[in-house]
């Protein structure tokens, strides 16, 4: 780290401190569930709440803490689509592929996002700004195809609208 | 026999036909007739005169003048000048050095010692009279009337003649085994199913001197106690079939075949059997199957043909060239023959260099000649003048030999010649491509009954093919070697056993060239399909 000349040590230190704090929280979560049965999913939920995703280290800590084989923790984590074992982006873009959206070009919209963001479904952009997901029906079929970004909902998304949506969250970067 | 003032020998060997000798010949006959010379001059068709590259060719006797590169328009001049006026048409005369009766095409021909090919180009192969005039069937008389079968076999044994088809089994021993085997319907088979790429010597003999083979077969029949001889000729050799059929008919007409030949009490007949396109029938047991009207699939050995061959009877099978030696051996004695050649390889051998050589052709030389002499002196070196790279000795089933063996001698104890094919490659040729082509040949010609050969040749071909397309994997090389040695160990007949030889031997010589294809996906010569369509005409 000493090789850094750009004056970012401060930032790095801050990040390390944040990280350490997260692990403290994780230890609390684990303590909370220790010795109980059938709590793995709740624990993972909470852990993901802290970290935003489930890094390997977190899975290991959970496995150890709850005395569950790591293979099982990992297996459960990969079973539920809610859990993320790769880091999440700042914003999650969800393209609806429910029947109505699908027939109105949801698939193409998704592909357009994949192309623009250079990532696949369930992936995260290199700069961790976006994660790309698919949705099953959000109940806005009249306005298909629908894309959600966080709490924002975009309706009747056409292909040429995709860069616009992205730009909104990158501030034009 | 009418007496002619002049004989004109017109070469009608297969290669000369390509050059247009037929038209020249008919023009000549017409012109002679027009001039009223038909009772004085006889036009004789003959087999290859050995200078086909200069064809069409004719020789006028008794002067022994050779005219070459003839056109139909040259004929009136020759008839006018030479036959009527006795003046040589010098602009058409072949100017190469001339020795003896043969007109060599180039200096290298002087190295030849013609025993088997003695009559080739000298006599009219369609005339039994000429054959007889040149001493033919005299030996047959000698053998049938003055010698016992045992003596004939002994003479052949003394000569130490070995089979010329490639396997080099001692002929005398083969005859002896067959003679001693029990059977009331023994056969002699002349194997003229010459199919090995690069070989065309047997074709030349059958086209140019069929009686020699017929005579030898009768002697062989007498020696082993056979009743019938079979001449198994490749179906593609139309002229060979025509000439031998005529020879047999003529011999029959003269009582040289049939009942009680020469009053010896010996009955014998020869049948010509036309093959139908299967290289594997050159394998002796497959040939027998084919003669019996079956698929040409090799048989389980033992038993071997000398004890159980055609129709389950003792059978002797000899190559054309092997048999063509016989009359000379009986005439001059085994001792004489054993005096020619090297310690373990007696007599002469016919070679047929082809591929990238200046003078492709058929040459008969004594054993012990070096490869350099054959390739550089007889065949004139590479056609392109570029450095020599390698030669497939004996054809695709033989070994790939490189320049380092140039001074080895052709002899069974040194460099085994196979059937005599020499497929020469200059430095421009890609070894992998050539081996791939050899394997393609074996895939096409495998009879398909035994697993290693049927499936193995296919897999070997697929592998080399992928190499020439830059699709190889390094592990392929080890796999190919393993497969090659397994085929050699387990295949039922020679075809599968030798199918991998070209690869195995060439890989030893040119490992880098293989690696470059397999690992580097690159052909150093640029001749592979990976770079272009292959072959000289695309270069």
């Amino acid at each position, binding site marked *: 780290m000493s090789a850094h000349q750009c004056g970012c040590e401060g*930032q*790095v230190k*801050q*990040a*390390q401190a*944040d*990280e350490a704090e997260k692990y403290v929280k994780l230890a609390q979560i684990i303590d909370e569930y220790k010795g109980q049965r059938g709590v793995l999913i709740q624990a993972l939920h909470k852990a993901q709440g802290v970290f935003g995703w489930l*890094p*390997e*280290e977190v*899975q*290991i800590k959970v*496995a*150890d803490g709850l005395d*569950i*084989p*790591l*293979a*099982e*923790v*990992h*297996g459960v984590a*990969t*079973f539920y689509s809610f859990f993320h074992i790769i*880091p999440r982006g700042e914003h999650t873009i969800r393209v609806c592929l429910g029947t109505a959206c699908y027939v109105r070009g949801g698939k193409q919209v998704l592909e357009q996002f994949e192309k623009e963001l250079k990532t696949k479904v369930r992936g995260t952009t290199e700069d961790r700004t976006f994660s790309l997901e698919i949705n099953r029906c959000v109940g806005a079929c009249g306005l298909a195809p629908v894309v959600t970004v966080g709490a924002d909902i975009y309706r009747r998304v056409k292909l040429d609208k995709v860069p616009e949506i992205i730009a909104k969250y990158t501030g034009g970067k | 026999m009418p007496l002619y003032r002049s004989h004109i020998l017109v070469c009608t060997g297969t290669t000369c036909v390509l050059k247009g000798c037929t038209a020249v010949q008919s023009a000549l006959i017409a012109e002679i007739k027009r001039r009223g010379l038909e009772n004085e001059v006889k036009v004789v068709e003959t087999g290859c005169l050995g200078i086909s590259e200069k064809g069409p060719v004719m020789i006028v006797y008794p002067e022994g003048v050779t005219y070459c590169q003839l056109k139909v328009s040259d004929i009136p001049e020759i008839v006018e000048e030479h036959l009527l006026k006795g003046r040589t048409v010098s602009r058409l005369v072949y100017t190469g050095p001339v020795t003896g009766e043969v007109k060599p095409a180039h200096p290298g021909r002087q190295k030849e010692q013609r025993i088997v090919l003695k009559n080739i180009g000298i006599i009219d192969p369609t005339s039994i009279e000429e054959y007889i005039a040149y001493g033919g069937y005299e030996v047959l008389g000698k053998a049938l009337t003055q010698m016992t079968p045992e003596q004939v076999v002994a003479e052949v044994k003394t000569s130490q003649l070995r089979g010329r088809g490639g396997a080099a089994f001692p002929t005398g021993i083969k005859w002896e085994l067959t003679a001693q085997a029990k059977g009331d319907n023994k056969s002699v088979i002349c194997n003229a199913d010459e199919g090995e790429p690069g070989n065309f010597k047997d074709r030349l003999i059958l086209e140019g001197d069929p009686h020699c083979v017929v005579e030898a077969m009768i002697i062989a029949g007498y020696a082993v106690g056979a009743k019938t001889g079979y001449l198994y000729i490749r179906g593609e050799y139309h002229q060979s079939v025509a000439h031998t059929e005529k020879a047999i008919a003529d011999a029959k007409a003269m009582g040289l075949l049939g009942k009680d030949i020469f009053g010896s009490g010996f009955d014998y007949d020869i049948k010509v059997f036309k093959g139908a396109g299967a290289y594997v029938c050159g394998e002796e047991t497959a040939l027998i199957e084919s003669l019996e009207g079956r698929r040409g699939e090799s048989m389980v050995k033992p038993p071997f043909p000398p004890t159980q061959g055609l129709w389950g009877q003792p059978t002797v099978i000899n190559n054309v060239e092997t048999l063509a030696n016989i009359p000379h051996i009986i005439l001059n004695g085994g001792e004489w023959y054993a005096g020619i050649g090297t310690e373990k390889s007696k007599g002469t051998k016919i070679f047929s260099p082809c591929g990238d050589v200046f003078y492709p052709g058929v040459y008969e030389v004594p054993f012990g000649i070096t490869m350099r002499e054959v390739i550089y002196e007889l065949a004139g070196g590479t056609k392109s003048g570029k450095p020599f790279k390698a030669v497939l000795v004996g054809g695709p089933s033989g070994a790939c030999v490189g320049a380092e063996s140039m001074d080895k001698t052709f002899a069974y104890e040194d460099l085994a010649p196979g059937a005599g094919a020499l497929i020469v490659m200059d430095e421009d040729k890609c070894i992998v491509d050539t081996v791939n082509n050899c394997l393609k040949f074996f895939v096409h010609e495998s009879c398909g009954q035994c697993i290693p050969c049927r499936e193995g040749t296919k897999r070997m071909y697929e592998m080399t093919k992928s190499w020439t397309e830059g699709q190889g994997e390094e592990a392929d090389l080890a796999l190919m070697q393993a497969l090659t040695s397994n085929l050699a160990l387990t295949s039922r007949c020679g075809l599968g056993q030798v199918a991998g030889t070209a690869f195995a031997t060439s890989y030893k010589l040119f490992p880098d060239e293989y690696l470059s294809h397999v690992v580097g996906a690159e052909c150093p010569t640029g001749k592979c399909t990976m770079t272009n369509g292959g072959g000289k005409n695309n270069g």
Partner: protein
Amino acid sequence: MEQVTLTIDGKEVSVPKGSTVLDASKAAGIGIPTLCHLENVHAIGACRICLVDVGARSLQTACTYPASEGMKVVTNNPRVRSARKTVVELMLSAHRQECTCCPRSLNCELQKVAKILGIQEHRFDGEMPEQILDTSSPSITRDSSKCILCRRCVTVCQQVQGVGALFPVDRGFETAIVPALKNDLIDVACVMCGQCVSVCPVGALYEKDSTDDVWKAIADPTKHVVVQTAPAVRAALGEEFGMPAGTRVTGQMVTALRQMGFDKVFDTDFTADLTILEEGNELLHRVKNGGTLPMITSCSPGWIKYIEHFYPTLLPHLSTCKSPQQMFGALAKTYYAEKAGIKPEDIFVVSIMPCTAKKYECQRTEMSAHPGIPDVDVVLTTRELGKMIREMGMDFANLPKGECDSPLGLSTGAAVIFGATGGVMEAALRTVYEVVTGETLDNVNFTAIRGLEGVKEATVKVGDLDVKVAIASGLSNAKKLMEKIKNGEADYHFIEIMCCPGGCLGGGGQPIPTTNEIRKARMGAIYEEDEHLTIRKSHENPAVLALYAEFLGEPLGHKSHELLHTHYTPRAKYPETDKEEVTTGGE
């Protein structure tokens, strides 16, 4: 016990309450095919092969459906047949079919089921799941392309062995059984016991095949190839050739090995006896000198790896003795090499073991008497030996009986029973008793510590001393004892632990299948072999005594320590993960 009566295919049958339909059908003599079902271990109804018609709207899995009074079960009607067929066909659509070169060919449950159900077409053709081929482990190879996701391996790893190295990840069509974090097996806390291989119905898990290395060594004229065979092998090898479980084939095995071309056929039993002398003395030493107690046996490499990963703090409890296999290797390349006048590097030691973990053990760097030369070169499982004998085309059952070569082939009944759980303990007690008391032990059979229970305890009076012993087989049972020690609740002197249920006779390298019934039969064979031997105590083995006299000096001597003892390495429970990604997250 309360019984329920039901009819299956019109046949009335009574079974204890709580039985499944599958149990009932067995009692009725009606076959129902199964795949994921693993008796006493695993009934999850995942594979759907055992579907039957119980009159409900949907078909039910016989392995999970409880038998009830008056129930009418139909195991064979168009619905059932078509369902089963479809299930198998679907399985096949995601199963890489290369039966002919699969290690499980002709011993594959899927192959058998397909045959029984008369499957003759393959209607579903499409994308195959991505193949994960993991050859990282020296013991076990995993090939997901053949996996039918029955999860037997998961259950056995987790519940029977308490290791939990494997678990399903992802879901639906993408589901795969993998080690944690989709690591390679070598990178996780796998103990290499091979129990997963043993229960795998297909060829998705199998031992790393080393037979070619052995064939090569045998064919190499410069190598002096010796072979040792573990005690449990002889009680199971016959099963590879269709002989009933529990057939003793020691003599045939020796003859087969000799005909295969081994230069010497020795016996791991020899070093099993040696182990008793070393370990017995170590125990006495610890008892006398207040060493760490309880002392735990160290013959089982799966167990060693387990304690290294999961209880590294308890490592001082382990006996420092190497396993008999490794003692043998060390002696073969020192004592025997000297005696026979052969250079150690020219000796090639092959072990035939009931165990896949032994393949790992022999590669441990500690296990070489000469630097750079492993003491044991190749370990083969019982199955691999079976394979080699088949390749030789031998009529195994009818081979003449042969005898092991000396000196490393001489052994006692005490060594033979090493193959069964409790055997090491019994063998040790036979010797310790006589050493301590100086009296002759009349009844050498310590039947109290025999049997297949997971954890056994006993107190044995040795002279004045009440020796408290415990025995566990199967790692989840071992875990119970470890927790006791950890919590200071264990007052044992001596504990025997075997990694695999039933001990080595149930090892992961033994013929497939291995069931409790088969374990019992093999155990019977082992005790029978012991009974038939005249010498049944390790300290009476004349070859071992000669070894001490000629070479080692005395138990626990300097040379012993050098060659026969070892040390253990604490290992992480989890693989080294790439922490970089976590800590640089803020950039």
